[in-house]
């Protein structure tokens, strides 16, 4: 199982802060995002924007292979400080 978190404007657009999806062998971050984007038009457009991704609470810039039990997060560029 993969846990997916959404934050800030993305969370609001999706009206969703977290979902869980089944893990499938060989799943990558790219596959996961692609699957989510196929849900409907809102998800497609929200996830097409300028987003950052984290796997296991570490920012990742490349496509990454996932393993079962991982936590993935998608969010807009950060604006703290």
């Amino acid at each position, binding site marked *: 199982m993969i846990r997916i978190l959404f934050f*800030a404007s993305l969370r609001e657009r999706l009206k969703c802060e977290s979902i869980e999806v089944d893990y499938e062998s060989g799943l990558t971050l790219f596959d996961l995002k692609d699957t989510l984007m196929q849900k409907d038009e809102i998800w497609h457009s929200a996830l097409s924007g300028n987003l950052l991704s984290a796997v296991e609470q570490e920012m990742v810039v490349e496509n990454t292979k996932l393993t079962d039990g991982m936590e993935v997060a998608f969010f807009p*560029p950060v604006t703290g400080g």
Partner: protein
Amino acid sequence: MIRVSEQDFVVADEYQALINDNASDGAVVFFVGLVRDFNQGNNVSELYLEHYPAMTQKVLCEIVEQSKRRWNLGRVRVYHRVGHLSINDQIVFVGVSSRHRDDSFRAAQYIMDFLKTEAPFWKKETVNKNISRWVESEIKDYSARDSW
């Protein structure tokens, strides 16, 4: 010491924690970020800070560790607030002590530059006419980070 909290911090206490029983560091630099009344073209009345709790502490620790590898530092303290804030409220504190001032200045600026672009915080402002909007990230923050 790294802390993320809804509670406010007291600059005098943070400063004391940097200098108490610390006779070897002659230089202390700190930065405080506060809620401004004007941002990106609009008057601001309130601010809400969201974050990704499981990730925030991890990222801040990593940034501080990086700064300690680059410069000869004594103590480092980072305090970032989350939740609802008003105009003039304190948002973030970064304090660095070192033997020589150049190390403290650079490290404090480095920590802020990376915090601004890599720590998972998001600001939502209440602007004119009680409209809420998520703050946009700024290119100059990425340029600042990439200058290191």
